[in-house]
């Protein structure tokens, strides 16, 4: 077996473990943060500060009976949760956690990129996989053979597809600016500081890192809103709207099949925030302090910075959930088609013009 395959396998297992433990932490964190905002205590029984609560819930769900409705379409009913979980794991494979590192194995030095798979079409891969999540929700809703899940599934298909469009459009300016569709290249293009042709402005902006969020703020906002809608979080959680559709597409799921949906939702949340950080917030870029810190910790600093940015965005997700009421179905579609898509198209046009001027100069000069 060649050494490359072993390294890839190790990376795959590391990412699997990272995502699973991370989800446990994330659910606990969300519950604690929301509890703090609503002046409650939140989970505090299992383990220190209730940190093992999610683990206990997962064990409970594992041991529970799995009920299948009589009218359910068996194959699709079983397939749907798997279809939800697998893409969520795959998306994280393309997110770079840091720069390439050199490892000495059997005297020979091997360069290992800290990314599951550095695809040169990473952005497309990400968009494609996040679309597959729609199928899981639609199939789950339809195959349950029940009315509330069906309504949830119908809502999902319309919502997620329309927000996919806005999301893809808001990514195009980023690709134009970075000149690449590879996630690693997009991160590298954000290195350094902002610069301006005007000397006076240059002195001011040269302290600000060259992250895409600053030139592409509108695209960032659109992408962020669309990502919330894409993972069905409040205020766009119409798919599972508890007060209207009881539980939406997962009403008829119980036991570990339900846990799979739950897990997928939180992993998707984490993925979306990590992707947002990579596209707009400079990914793993950040000071490594290689002069002060021991080399091992210094090498992990990029992953740490990515984590900080990701959890910062996740905090905003939770904050929004605790604050905003849910949108109505038609308002959601209106926001998607009448506001976000036109704005992202205009923004694409504007940033193309700016980029053209920067590359080729003004047309009359």
């Amino acid at each position, binding site marked *: 077996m060649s050494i490359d395959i072993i390294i890839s396998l190790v990376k795959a297992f590391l990412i699997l473990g990272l995502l699973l433990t991370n989800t446990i932490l994330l659910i606990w964190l969300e519950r604690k943060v929301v509890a703090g905002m609503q002046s409650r205590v939140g989970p505090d029984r299992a383990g220190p500060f209730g940190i093992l609560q999610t683990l206990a819930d997962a064990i409970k769900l594992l041991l529970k009976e799995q009920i299948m409705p009589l009218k359910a379409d068996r194959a699709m009913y079983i397939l749907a949760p798997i279809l939800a979980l697998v893409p969520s794991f795959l998306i994280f494979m393309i997110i770079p956690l840091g720069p390439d590192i050199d490892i000495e194995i059997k005297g020979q030095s091997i360069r290992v990129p800290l990314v599951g798979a550095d695809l040169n079409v990473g952005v497309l891969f990400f968009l494609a996989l996040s679309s597959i999540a729609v199928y899981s929700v639609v199939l789950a809703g339809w195959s349950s053979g029940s009315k509330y899940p069906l*309504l949830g599934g119908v809502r999902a298909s319309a919502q997620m597809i329309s927000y996919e469009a806005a999301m893809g459009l808001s990514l195009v300016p980023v690709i134009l600016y970075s000149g690449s569709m590879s996630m690693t290249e997009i991160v590298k293009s954000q290195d350094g500081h902002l610069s301006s042709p005007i000397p006076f402005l240059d002195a001011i902006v040269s302290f600000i890192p060259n992250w895409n969020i600053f030139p592409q703020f509108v695209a960032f906002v659109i992408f962020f809103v669309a990502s919330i809608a894409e993972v069905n979080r409040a205020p766009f959680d*119409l798919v599972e709207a508890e007060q209207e559709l009881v539980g939406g597409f997962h009403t008829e799921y119980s036991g570990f099949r339900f846990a799979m949906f739950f897990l997928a939702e939180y992993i998707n949340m984490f993925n979306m925030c990590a992707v947002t950080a990579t596209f707009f917030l400079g990914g793993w870029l950040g000071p490594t302090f290689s002069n002060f810190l021991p080399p091992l910790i210094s090498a992990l600093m990029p992953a740490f910075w990515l984590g900080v940015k990701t959890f910062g965005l996740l905090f905003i997700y939770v904050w929004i959930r605790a604050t905003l009421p849910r*949108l109505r179905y038609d308002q959601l579609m209106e926001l998607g088609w009448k506001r976000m898509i036109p704005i992202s198209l205009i923004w694409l046009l504007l940033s193309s013009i700016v980029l053209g001027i920067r590359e080729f100069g003004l047309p009359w000069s």
Partner: protein
Amino acid sequence: MNEEKDLKDDLDFWATNSEEGGWNISSTDEGSQKMLEEEDEKQIKIQTGSDVVDDYVYSEETTDDERMIVNMGPQHPSTHGVLRLQVELEGEVVRRVKPVIGYLHTGMEKTGEELAYFQGPTNTTRMDYLSPLFNELVFSLTTEKLLDIEVPERAKAIRILMTELNRVSSHLVALATGGMDIGALSMMIFGFRERELILNFFEKTSGLRMNHNYIRPGGVAADLPDNWQKDVKEILKIIPEKLKDYDEMLLDNPIWQGRLKNVGILTTEECFAYGITGPSLRASGFSWDLRKRQPYSGIENYDFEVPLLTDSDVFSRWRIKVLEIYESLKIVEQTMDTIPKGAYRIQDKKVTPPPRQRLDESMEALIHHFKIYTEGFKVPPGKAYVAVESPRGELGCYIVSDGSSKPYRMHIRGPSFCNLQALPVIMADSPIADAVAAIASLDPVIGDVDR
């Protein structure tokens, strides 16, 4: 003389023509067996659940493919208890609604006929469990009207103080659950958090957080606790602050406005047609508040306004509850200054049990105590209807007395029951999400619907 004859006819009518009167089978095993035999077999099957009747008929020339019947409830997160709605959906849009009630039927009105008057508030307080003091108040007022007695001024002031605080706590729950139904999850916790302050005060005063049995015929059960002003002052200070917080979070929020404005329209004409009272009527631009129109318990002496909004949508029904909380707090503030000293219950030997220490000294007191707690006080024959403005609308109590110590017939006009009739009107032709908001805006309490 003539009146007495009318009453006798009336009693005869009740005895012969009503189901209750004709019901002469005793509740022994034999009797109930006989009753079961007389019952329609199909009906029993439906009641026991072994035969499900799908009695729903599609409205127009539509087929199963276009329309879908969805059962919202009896177990559904946003039907506020065990209300069941048969909803006919066309895609996401609600076309017809058929409310089905009775899942919380407890027979409290019938039970009221078996309980003496002094036990009555224990029973009525459990009907509308979010505004229990109003139920006690209306029962006590009706009994007092039959007895033709006047409670002391202090008792009246205490009643106003407690019921207005109860209005605040009830509206806070309405705001909380209304917020939750629209997805503002924090609002739910906030509303219940502030209600806790008031419930703590109730607990201090009456010993219970809900179902107080505090307001009784003849006055109130106990005087206000020592230093009650301190607690009430705290409530008066904190709740307006928190209401401002809610406004900051929701009032100008575009999602909140977009969800509530021009949704679930209920016009004044429709309110009249369905007998809808309370905040829903006032939000449709008709100023009708029994506190002003038919003042009770001396509420006419207090200075307060009746908020009025004219949009008749869910937003104004939400907003008017917030405004009413301010007005109720205004009344509470005035009671603190003006509450007179004196007895908190009527000094009438026939109605009020004597104080405990008198029992050791006076034979007379012992006899009265024994009579009141075994037989209850007798109420002269007659009938009376009194209505008060509960947080949900006109809460009325109708009692027919035959001269004994128990009501011959007790009927409660529950505002939730009447308001619920508007559901098919305000839910029709709106998306499910709006329909849910519309239910929340009516603020039904199922305990009050299924008495």
